[in-house]
């Protein structure tokens, strides 16, 4: 069923990405990692639907957040990132997805690996861990093109400063901050070895990002000894079908 959602706040994450908070009065609740379908309807009845990962932790206050990256030739993302204003209404369906989820009763170590806007469902897991008071040890490896492309920067810093069981490692593919120890480039075995749980910790891994990034990360993890059944992936293609 489609639910009417009212926009209650908007926040720019980067120059091309925006977080939208919706109020959904009859929202049934969700798990960290799930996504939602968003439907837009034109005046003549034409509709377009896209899926977006939910960024917010499960809560009972009938609010959910998504973060949308604007795609240059997108049909829906330019509207959501540029046209939408507070008090507008769109339709939502969900939550959707039962595999790429983290449940608060999971106590084992967790390895999160994000490529670009693939951070969104992983942020929901970090937020879910905090709001549930979970002690599950988390590590996040977050790959971005450049420092200005980071989503949720201040919140991630606060989480990793105040709670040492969330380890945070950034890596940059195109431009790194000054004095950054690693030359910008794709993730590689050395980085995986230094920034992720050794495989003997039997961490559950969640990898989300563009297809090529996820393929590389998953291959590096299995190459470093991870069992494939510990690695859950969510990919979005060159069309950005998810993000």
């Amino acid at each position: 069923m489609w639910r009417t959602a009212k926009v209650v706040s908007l926040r720019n994450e980067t120059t091309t990405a925006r977080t939208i908070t919706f109020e959904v009065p009859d929202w049934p609740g969700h798990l960290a990692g799930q996504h939602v379908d968003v439907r837009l309807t034109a005046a003549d009845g034409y509709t377009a639907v896209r899926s977006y990962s939910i960024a917010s932790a499960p809560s009972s206050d009938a609010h959910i957040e998504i973060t949308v990256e604007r795609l240059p030739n997108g049909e829906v993302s330019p509207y959501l990132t540029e046209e939408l204003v507070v008090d507008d209404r769109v339709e939502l369906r969900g939550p959707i997805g039962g595999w790429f989820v983290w449940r608060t009763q999971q106590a084992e170590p967790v390895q999160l690996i994000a490529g670009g806007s693939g951070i969104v469902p992983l942020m929901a897991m970090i937020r879910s861990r905090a709001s549930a008071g979970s002690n599950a040890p988390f590590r996040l490896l977050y790959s971005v093109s450049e420092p200005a492309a980071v989503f949720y920067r201040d919140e991630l810093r606060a989480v990793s400063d105040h709670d040492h069981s969330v380890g945070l490692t950034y890596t940059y593919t195109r431009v790194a901050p000054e004095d950054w120890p690693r030359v910008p480039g794709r993730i590689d075995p050395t980085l995986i070895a230094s920034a992720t749980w050794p495989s003997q910790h039997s961490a559950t891994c969640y990898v989300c990002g563009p297809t090529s990034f996820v393929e590389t990360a998953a291959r590096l993890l299995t190459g470093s000894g991870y069992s494939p059944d510990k690695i859950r992936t969510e990919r979005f293609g060159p069309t950005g079908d998810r993000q």
Partner: protein
Amino acid sequence: MSIISRGFSGRRSGADVKLPPGQYLTTDFPVLSAGPTPHVSLDRWELTIDDGTKVLRRWDWKSFRDLPVETFTVDLHCVTRWSKLGTRWEGVSLDTILADVESDASYALAHSYGDYTTNLPLKDLMNRKAWIAFRFNGEDLAPEHGGPARLLVPHLYLWKSAKWVRGITLIHEDQPGFWEQLGYHNYGDPWREQRHWGD
């Protein structure tokens, strides 16, 4: 009843293309997989048909490739809402695969390298509706798209077309596969928009 999205006009395809409800057209080939891509070497690859207790037929890569090959062009519809039209494949028809198999089963459970499973009625694999495909657009099928060989059942949503297929179990009682246990529709007809449980 839909609510109108103020200022939204959308981008319609100019061509008179008929897509299943809720789908949009793409010319890319996005990837949706639950885990790492298995890399299966051809000298260890095999395909089996079994009845849950015993193997009824078995092919290694060489004997599989000795089977008659069909070239076919089909439309693909993914539950994540993209559709890709007119894709060209080469593969072996399931009619060929199942030709000498004696069974009164009504359902099939496809299983893959990497332990993925998906279920479907056996009749949806018959009568030129399904293939074990190993070439796409004139090239060997890439691992991320299911190579060396994948099931292709284009009249159902694409998660039914198990990548890295290694066998098909013929069963009397239907049993849900991987995504079917996790909220996806048991049958998955795109034209009836059977995406999730309850659709």
